[in-house]
């Protein structure tokens, strides 16, 4: 029988085969389709044999890639044929030609169901196969219970049951809501005891789907899987038919280990032990043999075992054994093993603790990046991308750059995006980052998206020390004979902003800069011209004294574009021309761009978005997230609320410049004075607050300007010594063994940070520790910025938090090493449990030549958990009266107050978020304030304060504090007292007089509110 029995079909296939070209083939196929169509029209005269023949022809034609849009009905009708050969063809052709949504399929449901529940095994198999391949919702609704019955029926033969298992798998996957699998865990467990390996193979696939959906329900199957695996691995009771080159069904072994990976872990110690015995045997016992098939099959099992071991997060010992194996694999000649070695090593990155061992293979992996096989190169690229961190960025990114010039076009875009991301994420220093991006643009400009060059501009703008360097580099690239348009954009932008920093270098006069940029104008597109016009305007502004010749040249260009058809170009030309005729006014408007608010890198976001949702990639992503949350260099990862996305950078829009003009002009001046000689090793100070950056006082906000910096460096000994007599410097100076002198006064820095939320906490010649805090009710998030100021790394970095009992503080991992000139961010979460004035201490140490250890108070102080609230007279007095006396309302006469006017005092209160309510107290010498305090125990609690001053003696006053909680009242009163008797001062005079005259605040009593209250009450 078969085709040999269908002569017409054989003839047709030969005809098609003998067609000399595609055109002839199409003609022959069209002719045949016409023939079949006519024959089907007079269906009456068709014998089942003829029908079968034509349907096969249709399938053949369809397989060749031609659409067959008729005859489906005939195929479906064959399913109801009484004889096996016709029925079989009907089933096979239907499942090949139709999809699950096809209307005709519905016509067959009844026949299919009859075949399934009928007694004919071969019919059952055909029907189950069809449903298993294309069964949709209606099949699930009407057939699922029957299929389930067949699968577990003891009277059914394995050949039916194995198909029932996969049929059920499809129905369940497609419509989990229709197929009821309640109580199936026991049945599955039973199925896994199956001796027949065909049934076991199918059941294992079904189990994977069930466990993937709800692993909790199938714990009972776990030991069964391990047993099945043991049976296979030990070759117990495996029929010869199921061994493949001496290996007991490698496919079933693989599937079983896959199923085990869907359970999150294995808790039962006995099961775990048996499993690891098997895995160990596979890991150790797989040898390379001559026979290719045997070798592949045994390695298929081995790779699956590796994946399972990784999944189970096994002991370090067996893990390093796995990495060692993979290390061997990536170096072998056999390309398949090399490919899989790289792939699995990438998966392995998600396992902690082994990354360092993987790094040892870096050289080998880089070799694979140059492999003649693109499949292997891709795996190597992925692995390098995944394993990159601060310690190896330079090597890896430089390899990627080198490879970029020769890489296939298919890979360039991915390659350049990955290089840009790595350079940004792990840059050991910023000038290197600039180098990388410029090289990237130079080598693969077509593949560098706008995001990439926007980002580099952002970095340069926000880092003053980088500006001269970037300008030099941009200038160098312009000398190249042919440069990519993106390079023109970025160079023009940077030189427009910062070329004046190069003024004294040869070839860098405004005129020369202008002409070299202007040379490129004829080669660029309309989108670049506006950037060039802005650059010209800026060059003009920076040309002091003005150069009439240059001015005329530039003006001529502006005038030329005044009638440009492109609206953007035209507007700029008109505006720049008008502005530049204004002379001095131009100075303000054309000043340097202010810093950009820090925001998440659009590149990283883009990479995350484009990553497809595959298991290993999401694991990589997970790891990347862990890295960034622990310690991300340079980039600020917090979502920048309300800041525009990068695509709206508005790099050169005139209006956005005008409202920030004067302060940015100041920047410009500082820069012009400072510069070129002093390259300040300051790391960037990320800040989400643009206005804060621009308007905040220079002294403490952010890193000090370069001028201040160098001045301080000149006299480190005189002012840097922490004043041990200063009562505020409670950091236990005595324990410190430092030979390194801090820069600036630690106590003053702390005091300043008590009042504001960002600034420098500590600085010495090697490191700067900045802090930025965000407070919400009783919670706070601080970020410590650890900036290495040197050209060599800081090692043995350790940061310990010693929290007071009332604060819960959690510091994320601090890396052991801070690379040269890099900045590391370490988030610190704070939760306020109850009112207290105690402070947390950061015990920080590092090694740079000598061991340096400092203990720094953290500005997570009581007033950070206050939120200002202003209260009207109607609200205040009832509250005030309702709290009648101690311990909720405490009064004290405070002496030794630093003299200040009532207005000054009001300012001081406001700065601590105790909001003064003017006019509530009729006496002008008195002051009333209110605030809300947040902690976990008190929740939000209103606090009221009244101060009565004595105009005759400003060194004393009477203070009354009231709140709904005794400890809070006491702590707040003491807190205010501390502020009044020792005002933090930025002046470098002698330490303020110590409060000698306080009868009540004996140090011993401070920690014991009860005793303190007792003292107060007499």
């Amino acid at each position, binding site marked *: 029988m078969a085709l040999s029995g269908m002569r017409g079909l*054989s003839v047709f*296939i030969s005809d098609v085969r003998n067609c000399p070209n595609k055109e002839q083939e199409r003609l022959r196929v069209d002719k045949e389709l016409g023939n079949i169509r006519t024959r089907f029209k007079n269906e009456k005269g068709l014998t089942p044999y003829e029908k079968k023949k034509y349907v096969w022809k249709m399938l053949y034609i369809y397989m*060749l890639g031609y659409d067959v849009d008729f005859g489906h009905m005939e195929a479906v009708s064959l399913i109801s044929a009484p004889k096996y050969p016709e029925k079989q063809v009907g089933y096979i052709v239907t499942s090949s030609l139709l999809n699950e949504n096809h209307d005709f399929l519905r016509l067959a449901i009844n026949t299919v169901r009859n075949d399934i529940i009928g007694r004919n095994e071969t019919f059952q198999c055909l029907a189950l196969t069809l449903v298993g391949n294309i069964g949709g919702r209606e099949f699930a609704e009407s057939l699922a219970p029957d299929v389930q019955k067949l699968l577990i029926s003891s009277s059914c033969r394995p050949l039916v049951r194995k198909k029932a298992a*996969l049929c059920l798998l499809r129905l369940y996957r497609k419509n989990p809501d229709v197929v009821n699998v309640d109580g199936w865990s026991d049945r599955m467990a039973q199925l896994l005891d199956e001796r027949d390996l*065909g049934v076991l193979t199918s059941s294992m696939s079904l189990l994977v789907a069930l466990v993937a959906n709800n692993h909790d329900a199938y714990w009972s199957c776990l030991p069964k899987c391990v047993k099945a695996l043991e049976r296979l691995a030990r070759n117990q009771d495996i029929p010869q*038919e199921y061994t493949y080159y001496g290996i007991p*069904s490698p496919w079933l072994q693989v599937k079983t280990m896959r199923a085990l990976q869907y359970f999150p872990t294995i808790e039962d110690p006995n099961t775990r032990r048996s499993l690891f015995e098997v895995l160990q045997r596979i890991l150790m016992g797989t040898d390379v043999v001559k026979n290719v098939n045997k070798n*592949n099959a045994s390695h298929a099992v081995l790779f699956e075992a590796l994946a399972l071991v990784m999944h189970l997060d096994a002991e370090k010992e067996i893990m390093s054994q796995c990495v060692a194996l993979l290390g061997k694999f990536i170096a072998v000649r056999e390309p*398949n093993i090399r490919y899989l070695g790289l792939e699995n090593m990438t998966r392995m990155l998600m396992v902690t603790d082994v990354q360092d061992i993987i790094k040892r293979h870096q050289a080998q992996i880089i070799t694979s990046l140059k492999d003649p096989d693109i499949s292997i190169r891709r795996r190597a690229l992925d692995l390098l991308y995944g394993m990159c961190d601060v310690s190896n960025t330079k090597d890896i990114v430089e390899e990627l750059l080198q490879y970029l010039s020769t890489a296939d076009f298919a890979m360039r875009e991915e390659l350049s995006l990955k290089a840009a991301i790595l350079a940004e994420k792990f840059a050991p220093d910023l000038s290197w980052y600039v180098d990388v991006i410029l090289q990237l643009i130079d080598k693969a400009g077509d593949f560098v998206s706008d995001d990439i060059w926007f980002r580099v501009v952002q970095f340069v703008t926000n880092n003053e020390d980088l500006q001269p360097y970037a300008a030099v580099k941009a200038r160098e690239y312009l000398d190249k004979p042919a440069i990519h348009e993106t390079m023109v954009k970025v160079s023009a932008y940077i030189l427009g902003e910062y070329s004046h920093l190069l003024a004294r270098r040869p070839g860098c006069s405004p005129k020369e800069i202008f002409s070299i940029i202007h040379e490129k104008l004829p080669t660029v597109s309309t989108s670049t011209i506006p950037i060039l016009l802005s650059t010209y305007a800026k060059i003009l502004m920076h040309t002091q004294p003005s150069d009439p010749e240059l001015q005329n040249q530039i003006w001529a260009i502006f005038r030329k574009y005044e009638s440009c058809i492109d609206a953007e170009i035209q507007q700029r030309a008109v505006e720049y021309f008008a502005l530049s005729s204004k002379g001095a006014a131009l100075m303000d408007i054309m000043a340097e761009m202010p810093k950009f608010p820090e925001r998440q890198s659009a590149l990283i976001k883009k990479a995350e978005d484009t990553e497809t949702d595959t298991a290993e990639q999401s694991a990589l992503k997970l790891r990347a997230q862990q890295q960034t949350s622990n310690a991300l260099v340079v980039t600020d990862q917090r979502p920048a609320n309300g800041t525009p996305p990068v695509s709206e950078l508005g790099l050169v829009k005139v209006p956005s410049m005008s409202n920030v003009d004067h302060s940015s002009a100041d920047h410009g001046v500082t820069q012009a004075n400072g510069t070129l000689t002093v390259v300040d090793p300051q790391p960037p100070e990320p800040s989400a607050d643009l206005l804060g950056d621009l308007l905040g006082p220079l002294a403490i906000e952010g890193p000090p300007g370069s001028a201040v910096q160098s001045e301080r460096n000149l006299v480190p000994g005189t002012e840097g010594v922490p004043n041990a007599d200063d009562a505020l410097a409670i950091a236990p100076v005595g324990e410190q063994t430092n030979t390194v002198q801090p820069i600036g006064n630690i106590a003053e820095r702390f005091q300043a940070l008590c009042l504001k939320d960002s600034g420098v906490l500590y600085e010495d010649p090697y490191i700067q520790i900045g802090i930025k805090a965000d407070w919400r009710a009783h919670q706070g998030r601080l970020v410590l910025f650890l900036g290495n100021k040197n050209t060599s790394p800081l090692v043995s970095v350790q940061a310990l938090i010693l929290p007071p009992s009332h604060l819960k503080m959690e510091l994320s991992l601090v890396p052991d090493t801070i690379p040269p000139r890099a900045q590391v961010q370490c988030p610190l979460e704070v939760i306020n449990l109850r009112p207290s004035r105690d402070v947390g201490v950061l015990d920080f140490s590092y090694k740079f030549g000598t061991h340096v250890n400092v203990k720094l108070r953290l500005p997570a102080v009581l007033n950070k958990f206050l939120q200002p609230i202003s209260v009207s007279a109607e609200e205040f007095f009832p509250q005030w009266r309702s709290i009648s006396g101690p311990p909720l309302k405490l009064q004290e006469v405070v002496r030794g107050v630093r003299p200040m006017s009532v207005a000054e005092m009001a300012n001081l209160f406001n700065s601590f978020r105790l909001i003064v309510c003017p006019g509530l107290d009729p006496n002008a010498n008195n002051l009333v304030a209110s605030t809300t305090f947040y902690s976990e125990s008190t929740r939000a609690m209103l606090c009221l304060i009244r101060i009565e001053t004595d105009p005759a003696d400003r060194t004393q006053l009477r203070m009354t504090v009231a709140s709904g909680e005794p400890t809070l009242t006491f702590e707040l009163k003491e807190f205010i007292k501390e502020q009044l008797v020792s005002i933090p001062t930025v002046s470098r005079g002698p330490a303020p007089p110590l409060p000698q005259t306080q009868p009540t605040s004996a140090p011993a009593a401070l920690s014991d509110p009860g005793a303190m209250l007792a003292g107060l009450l007499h």
Partner: protein
Amino acid sequence: MGIRFILMVNKQGQTRLAQYYEYLTIEERRALEGEIVRKCLTRTEQQCSFVEHRKYKIVYRRYASLFFMVGIDNEENELAILEFIHLVVETMDRHFGNVCELDIMFHLEKAHFMLEEMVMNGCIVETSKSSILTPIQLMDRA
């Protein structure tokens, strides 16, 4: 779901057998097959048997003039699929006796039946050659 499709293509790029386990329109199939064939046929013996293409990984193996290509997703083990191809070939060998392109061409239905016994809904059902061939032999005798 594992296996997404199985293709048998000769070295001129003509499809000799195509079995899909997910629905693609005829245009999508044509495009996909064209791309895969171009990619795989230009590869040398020294290169690995895996090619990444769109969302698939293609595991392929060449036997004389015929390429066997299996498209899989991330749920499959590449080497296991590579040997599964060989199992298919061995099974066909046992039936046809040293199978060649023409056997598959002119006995398309048998090739289909065998595959049907081995793979269902993208999962491997049976790996025992005798179990796979029993129904076909029954039919031949009928």
